[in-house]
């Protein structure tokens, strides 16, 4: 229902129809698109077509909306063009420039974009000011942290800037529907505790409520274990645990996030075995690809994660070690 709106208001710009402005209050005079965000306000004269994606995961939102970015920011993983498998087909053979490391303002300028999406990019206000001289820049909403923009809010913001609101609403409704169907299929999951944790470099850490991985679990009906609930933690999205006390992550379902190579470290982590979650076979091991899907937490990656996780969580949550969680067995986590 938003697509006709967008078309109407563009026509409204030509006709100068004032009533539409009242209907979409964010769209001030002359069909301009206005976006309030963490670094102020960005104004677009018209929906953009040449878009540079500077957020570590914003390429997914753009590709989902049918907008192939001119450039993509490299986050991690060995995937061509920095585009992970769930989004790869949407490239349609295009090869966006892959930008690694710090943002190169010159490179961005050379692409002559008419929009820069920097939601979840971690750029500074000074970089934002410089980039704004090249093209309008979209940042995360003022009320969320740098990497804490909810997937649907990001999708709506990008959609409005690229004139693809209709597609965004379809995608959001589709994914929300999947979450709802899943919650209905698994009434036994509701209000049980679940947590995403990771272990590497001798340090075990847990993702907190503001993180996309925890938000994903919440969409499935889970809640954080009490010890972690309401914690602010480091950088707002995770907390490190003492190696002598891992009890805060002893949840009904314990998902281990990895980026590759951590399975052996986990298998050797003696303190893990003292957890009820470990003894009762409630652990799920997320390999690099599944962990990536959860870490992206995008409209494209979450359906991918759902497909793979549903049987795994179902096998873990019954708390019966006899029902083997396949991923945990393959990772060598079972005794």
């Amino acid at each position, binding site marked *: 229902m938003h697509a006709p709106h967008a078309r109407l208001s563009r026509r409204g710009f030509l006709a100068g129809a004032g009533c539409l402005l009242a209907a979409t209050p964010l769209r001030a005079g002359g069909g301009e698109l206005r976006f309030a965000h963490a670094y102020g306000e960005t104004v677009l004269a018209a929906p953009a077509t040449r878009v540079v994606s500077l957020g570590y995961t914003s390429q997914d939102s753009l590709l989902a909306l049918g907008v192939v970015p001119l450039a993509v920011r490299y986050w991690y993983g060995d995937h061509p063009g920095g585009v992970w498998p769930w989004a790869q087909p949407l490239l349609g053979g295009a090869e966006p420039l892959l930008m690694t490391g710090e943002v190169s303002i010159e490179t961005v300028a050379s692409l002559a974009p008419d929009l820069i999406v920097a939601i979840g990019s971690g750029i500074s206000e000074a970089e934002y000011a410089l980039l704004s001289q090249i093209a309008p820049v979209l940042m995360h909403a003022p009320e969320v942290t740098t990497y804490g923009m909810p997937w649907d809010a990001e999708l709506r913001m990008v959609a409005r800037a690229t004139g693809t609101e209709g597609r965004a609403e379809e995608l959001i409704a589709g994914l929300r529907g999947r979450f709802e169907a899943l919650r209905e299929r698994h009434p036994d999951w509701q209000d049980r505790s679940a947590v995403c944790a990771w272990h*590497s470099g001798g340090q075990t850490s847990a993702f907190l409520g503001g993180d996309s991985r925890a938000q994903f679990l919440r969409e499935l009906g889970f809640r954080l274990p009490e010890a972690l609930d309401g914690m602010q933690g480091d950088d707002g999205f995770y907390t*490190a645990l*003492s190696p*002598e*006390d891992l*009890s805060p992550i002893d949840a009904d379902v314990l998902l281990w996030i990895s980026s590759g*190579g951590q399975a052996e470290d986990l298998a050797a982590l*003696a303190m893990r*075995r*003292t957890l009820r979650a470990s003894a009762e076979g409630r652990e799920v091991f997320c390999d690099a690809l599944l962990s990536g899907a959860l870490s992206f937490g995008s409209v494209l990656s979450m359906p991918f994660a759902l497909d793979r996780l549903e049987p795994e969580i179902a096998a873990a949550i019954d708390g019966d070690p006899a029902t083997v969680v396949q991923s945990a067995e393959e990772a060598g986590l079972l005794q």
Partner: protein
Amino acid sequence: MMRLFGLLALLALALVLALSVGARPVTPAVALEALRAYDPTNPDHVTMMAIRLPRLAAGLIAGGALGIAGTVMQVMTRNPLADPGLLGVNSGAAFALLIGATVFGAADEASVALLTFPGAALASALVFVLGGGLRGDVGPVRLTLAGAALNALLLSLVTAIVLVRQDTLDMFRFWVAGSLTQAASRPLAEMALIAAAGGLFALAVAPQIEALSLGSALSRGLGTKPRRVQAAALAVVTLCTGAAVAVAGPIAFLGLMVPPLARIVAGHSLRRELVASALLGAALLLFADTLGRVVMAPSEVRAGVMTALIGGPVFLWVARRLRPGATA
């Protein structure tokens, strides 16, 4: 002799604290029970056997070895600022290990850990040459500068690897600031043997090193072969630093702090100084690790960060006492 007993008492205190302080209160009774009948599902037992004991062992190995390496380096170069960390030997070992872990995968820890030795040897030889070692006496300022430059170069190479391979970032956190948290997965027994071998070798060649420290010309007059002694000292530094880095990562400033303190305790006899350095190094590293466990609980501050926090001021204190133009 009394002073040596004092050091042993200090080390004993460090051992007791390292075993009893942490996020989880474990009573001595439970600790003994863990030793006699280990139950892998009891968190208290796991804390003792899988966390605190390996950390204790790693602290003893790395602290003792770095104390010895620092003392040998300071005496050999007549440079009170010499330290395996500051002179890039630590980062050479860490760099070699990181390369190995990136290329071969971290699967085989014990064999990858052996890479610390060529890394430490190359770095110490390089800094010795860069610091003017081949042309005779090594001045403290020149050697320190060469070491700082080498250290910076190696650390930026490490950073470059990490920027190319984002998934090595967690490894990087360990290999930039040393820590005892991974002690359980490090090759402790092997490295203990190597560090002990390095320490015994140091004791054996101590008189020759002492003679050489009087200056090349005088020592030659006393019948010492400078090149051979330099090679022996290089071997000691390589064995000790390599073993320390393999169990604890690059721990900075420990080798700087320990020798002057050891000299106060042991007087000017290199053999006694080496023994005192080993005891003092182990005690200091264990104190640093124990302190790191409690200052920001439940998170832990890496032992390497704690030693740097204490060692930085010590470095300034020693540097300020250097007279301009002094060679030691």
